[in-house]
């Protein structure tokens, strides 16, 4: 007799079948949840727990109370890593948003050849982080790099980019922007293409110029996506690790040391796992606070957006009646 997962009517087996459904469902959940539990939940909890211990490479655990956090507040290199990370975020996030938005606006037109142009802009998305790092290492090369060659033609001195305390962070920001702005303009372009053409038309009928249309129709319509971009790029910026890890190892003279890199160094070079966990957890706390603050910002924007759209809708209705 075939057994139906869904019991029909009040047959005596119904309890057995419901039991069967729950057990099967739990079995379906098991592999995925087990992996996530083992590889995210446990390490996440450990990061928190170990941050209150002295813990060496060999897992000799000793309670330390708030020692690691107090040490963090007095550690000049760790504090420099925090300052560097904040500086990176403060430069990277606004630039990323402006460049990505500009590109997506430039690409949001239709004419012959636009498809080809778009794919050039989106190629950085298909290049992996490490490959991008590798390419930029050569773009910024002191003696054989094309950037210095171009500067030389224009009569400037050679700049030792990645090897200079002053310029290393800027070079890394440029490389991060290349990949990130392309990625986020892809998202923003998708949002722009969803902006209602009717609303744009209504605004034109009302005599709105391009700037007014951008401020009162386009911007409110993509506000939600824009905020998503802001949050995602901020989180990514706080976590920045790979370019410094591959190219400068935090140098020269700690100029590119960041929080994530500091945690890595403390754990795998210094062997102070407890302290490394405290640094990781501080990073996590910063990210959570920033995310929460930006979510608040999004909620505020959403209120504005709905008002603006409601107003445009009403105008659109009037425009329709007039026509």
């Amino acid at each position, binding site marked *: 007799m075939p057994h139906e997962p869904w019991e029909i009517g009040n047959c005596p087996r119904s309890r057995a079948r419901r039991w069967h*459904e729950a057990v099967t469902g739990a079995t379906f*959940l098991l592999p*995925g949840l087990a992996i996530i539990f083992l590889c995210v939940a446990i390490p996440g909890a450990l990061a928190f727990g170990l941050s209150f211990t002295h813990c060496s490479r060999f897992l000799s655990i000793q309670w330390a109370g708030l020692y690691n956090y107090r040490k963090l507040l007095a550690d000049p290199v760790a504090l420099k890593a925090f300052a560097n990370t904040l500086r990176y975020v403060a430069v990277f996030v606004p630039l990323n948003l402006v460049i990505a938005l500009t590109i997506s606006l*430039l690409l949001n037109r239709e004419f012959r050849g636009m498809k080809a142009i778009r794919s050039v802009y989106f190629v950085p998305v298909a290049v992996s*982080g490490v490959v991008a790092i590798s390419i930029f290492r050569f773009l910024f090369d002191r003696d*054989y790099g094309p950037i210095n060659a171009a500067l030389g033609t224009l009569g400037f001195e050679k700049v030792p980019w990645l090897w200079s305390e002053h310029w290393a962070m800027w070079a890394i920001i440029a490389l991060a922007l290349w990949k990130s702005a392309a990625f986020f303009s892809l998202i923003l372009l998708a949002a722009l293409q969803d902006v209602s053409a009717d609303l744009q038309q209504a605004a034109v009928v009302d005599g709105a110029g391009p700037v007014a249309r951008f401020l009162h129709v386009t911007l409110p319509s993509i506000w939600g996506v824009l905020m998503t971009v802001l949050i995602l790029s901020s989180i990514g910026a706080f976590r920045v690790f790979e370019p410094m890890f591959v190219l400068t190892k935090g140098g020269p003279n700690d100029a590119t040391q960041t929080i994530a890199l500091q945690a890595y160094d403390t754990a795998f070079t210094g062997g102070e796992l407890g302290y490394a966990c405290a640094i990781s*957890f501080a990073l996590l706390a910063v990210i959570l606070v920033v995310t929460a603050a930006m979510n608040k910002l999004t909620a505020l924007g959403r209120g504005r957006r709905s008002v603006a759209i409601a107003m445009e809708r009403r105008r659109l209705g009037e425009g329709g009646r007039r026509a």
Partner: protein
Amino acid sequence: MRRRRRTPRQQAATFVYGVLLAAGVVVFGFPLYWMVRGALINQAMWMRVPLVWLPPLKSLSLEAFAAIFASEQFRMSRVLLNTALVAVFMMGFNVIFDCMAGFALSKMRLPGKGLVLAALLTTIMVPFEGMMVPLYLTVTRLGLADTMLGIILPGAASAFCIVLMWRFFNTVPDEIIEAAAVDGASWGQILFSVAMPAAAPAIATIAVFTFLAGWEAFVWPLLITDPQSKFDVLQKVLANATYASMGGTTQTEWAYLMATGLISTLPVLALFLLFQRFFIAGLTGGAVKG
């Protein structure tokens, strides 16, 4: 009345637009051009000062590609195989495990579903950099240091993709699942022959997403494998060689780096052009409709 206004001002605006667009194409296209150029030119051309922006055809060669497949440091055929295995296994495990979990959460009656979802959403927020140290301890404790399984395991299921599948299965009507149940299908049959085919676009999204995660994985494989491991993957080898080149001692190998980069990029580029729709959806995780 608006259309007649083809004024000089508008012409100027079109001109500025064209200039901006072209400048952007140069800025965003140039690094890629430089990689392709670097991969294909010969050693003599690499060392030319002042540099040649557009190398003549006779300076092009495939010697860098031949060298990285022969080199002890790059061991390209072995490394490529490892990378492909990691990417394919990660994709396969994710498609199966994430679909099973998403389906159970969406379509089956079992207690505690809300709690599981809330827990999954919380784990999405935990950044890898915040937990890589304890994750390393955990996986090492399991005896998986420097093994293939150790590389794959943390990426074999994804809370993010489970939630994505859950959201998609919620849009699949209950009726087609009930109809299959009435026809006598077991839960496993319903999942694999009814629900998963109905969710093909979402599955394509997570497949592309997790394949890329495997192909481009770098920090984790570097942590969990030995410095010179037989499980080395592409990004790790490239990163190590790039760092080595920072000291300027390995100038003869510069072309190898760009060739490796090209090898890493070409499959992704092919995927990108074939599945652009799923790319956008997958990368943005449904925050934006692709």
